[in-house]
């Protein structure tokens, strides 16, 4: 039981990361009906942004871990990624707004490959070590919790939950209570009508990209705090898995992305954790996401929370 709880905690932590990245996929798909292949690499840029910003920030705490420092790094990475997302959209995707979706998809693949390889060129191929921003350690579980004291809960895991939760709440607020958020929702239903209502679609789309990319940037920092080894190709696997999570929850559906992310993180961790008992070699870890993807696409392509879109004949 304790083992299950431990796996669950680890899974939720991983799932939170997937959820943050998945939100970016789903929001962009919602307004543009397009899968931004390059999104996973924005996550990677977030981590590297943190890598370069951290030493500057940590100077004020004499190189030691500092919570305010970590917060600053997080914000900096989010801002940098938001800008990156907006720039990519303006340069590579906007000119193709009216072209067949295949064309944009290929372009996105091109952007993704460029980011990965340019990253390797600029940052070097080898993994680098992310500075310890918060002095990570396992939480001391008080004795009165009984058997729960056997659990290992890292401070970084709690941080990941907390930050993800805060960001989710903030996102929900933006999407439901602000004008821009309402415009986003309107765009995802009917772009023509939305522009006829006086909304500048381009601004809303830029905003959507910026928002999604900022969340990916946050995820990049959070994962770097948990697993301090970062490299330019780190966005590949989480990127595709977060995409699966978005599809799982229903692509275009924001709560769905969060749900999908958490579910995928938990299922993946449980499968790997119990791999001996399930007689599945743990090397199949990466296949879990794809397997789930195929199941979902074959049996419920609209995802857990998604709606069916009928084509008018």
């Amino acid at each position: 039981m304790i083992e299950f709880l431990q796996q669950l905690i680890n899974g939720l932590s991983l799932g939170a990361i997937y959820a943050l990245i998945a939100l970016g996929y789903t929001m962009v798909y919602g307004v543009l009906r397009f899968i931004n292949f390059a999104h996973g690499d924005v996550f990677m840029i977030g981590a590297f942004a943190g890598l370069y910003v951290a030493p500057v920030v940590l100077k004020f705490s004499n190189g030691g871990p500092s919570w305010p420092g970590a917060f600053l790094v997080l914000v900096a990475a989010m801002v940098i990624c938001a800008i990156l997302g907006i720039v990519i959209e303006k340069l590579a995707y906007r000119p193709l707004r009216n072209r067949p979706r295949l064309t944009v998809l290929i372009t996105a693949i091109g952007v993704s490959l460029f980011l990965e390889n340019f990253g390797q060129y600029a940052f070097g191929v080898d993994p680098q070590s992310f500075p310890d921003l918060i002095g990570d350690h396992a939480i001391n579980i008080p004795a009165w919790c009984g058997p729960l004291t056997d659990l290992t809960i890292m401070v970084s895991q709690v941080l990941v939950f907390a930050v993800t939760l805060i960001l989710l709440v903030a996102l929900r607020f933006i999407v439901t209570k602000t004008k821009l958020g309402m415009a986003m929702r309107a765009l995802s239903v009917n772009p023509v009508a939305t522009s006829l209502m006086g909304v500048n679609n381009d601004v809303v789309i830029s905003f959507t990209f910026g928002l999604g990319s900022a969340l990916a940037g946050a995820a990049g920092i959070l994962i770097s705090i948990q697993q301090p080894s970062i490299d330019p190709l780190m966005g590949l696997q989480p990127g595709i898995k977060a995409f699966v999570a978005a599809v799982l929850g229903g692509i275009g559906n924001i709560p769905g992305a969060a749900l999908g992310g958490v579910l995928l993180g938990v299922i993946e961790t449980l499968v790997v954790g119990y791999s001996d008992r399930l007689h599945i070699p743990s090397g199949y870890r990466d296949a879990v996401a794809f397997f789930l993807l195929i199941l979902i696409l074959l049996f419920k392509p609209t995802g857990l929370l998604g709606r069916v879109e009928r084509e008018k004949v």
Partner: protein
Amino acid sequence: MLERSKLTLLGALVVIFAASRFSSHIGPYYYDIVLSIGINIILGVSLNLVNGYTGQFSLGHAGFMSVGAYAAACFTTYATGVLAVLAPLGGFVSVSIFFGLALCVAGMAAGVAGLLVGIPSLRLKGDYLAIVTLGFGEIIKVVIENVDALGGARGFSVASGYTNLFWVYAMAAITIYVVLNLVNSTYGRGFITVRDDEIAAEAMGINTTKYKVLAFTLAAFFAGIAGGLYAHFKQFINPEGFNFLKSVDIVTMVILGGMGSTAGVVLAAIILTILPEWLRWFSEQPFLPHWLAHLVENRMIPYSLLLIILMLTRPQGLFGGVELKRKKA
């Protein structure tokens, strides 16, 4: 008197056979490139049937290539008994038949894989189909990595390099023959109707699912043959060599050539095979500043930029948008 396309094919095979006799005169480096071009032609032309003519976006073609590669490699490595049985026919004949069988096995295995992947996946459209095929490609890769008998992630060494210029280009000629003949028949126009308007096609009595699965399976078959040729060319295969990037390579060929233009895809295959070699040569030129040389060394950087620029400026590719001429049967 044989029908025109069959004559053309026979003619091509004769020319290829003659050319292969002189292949020892080309240096090994250029010989390698020529063979690579041929294999890429098979991959591009076969994928063009699915992506170009039928309009179904498949991102997992490399997966079928790997199935064929491993199937052929296993056949030549483990089915040596067959070779022994054929021995009395003489060295050249027995090896040829043996390798021919290996390629058949490669094609069939890949074809079956194509069928298994295609049937459930092809009800999905556009982006979803792309993702599912990507997913299947990755699953195939992960499965191979976890099967020790196939060498797993370490790879599989193939003892005999049966592949030569004749085999590669004969197979390329056959692939082109099959695709062109198919598409230029009334029956084959069905593929294009599926691409142009699936709903209208169904209303015209065309079983769109059958066409999609057919295109997919046939394309996988040829990808498998390409894989078999590749395995006995490089004499070493590993799952990483058939990853998503390889599928993107093949898709790029189809897009550069112009979806639905076989001639365009052949040209694109030639260009895209030579391009990385040219880039490598260019990056070694002494007049280049150091940073530029490094930038170009990683061929993916100019390659990905090429992809983006291509989509922004000429998404229909080289020959796309050129009307497919109506050929007489």
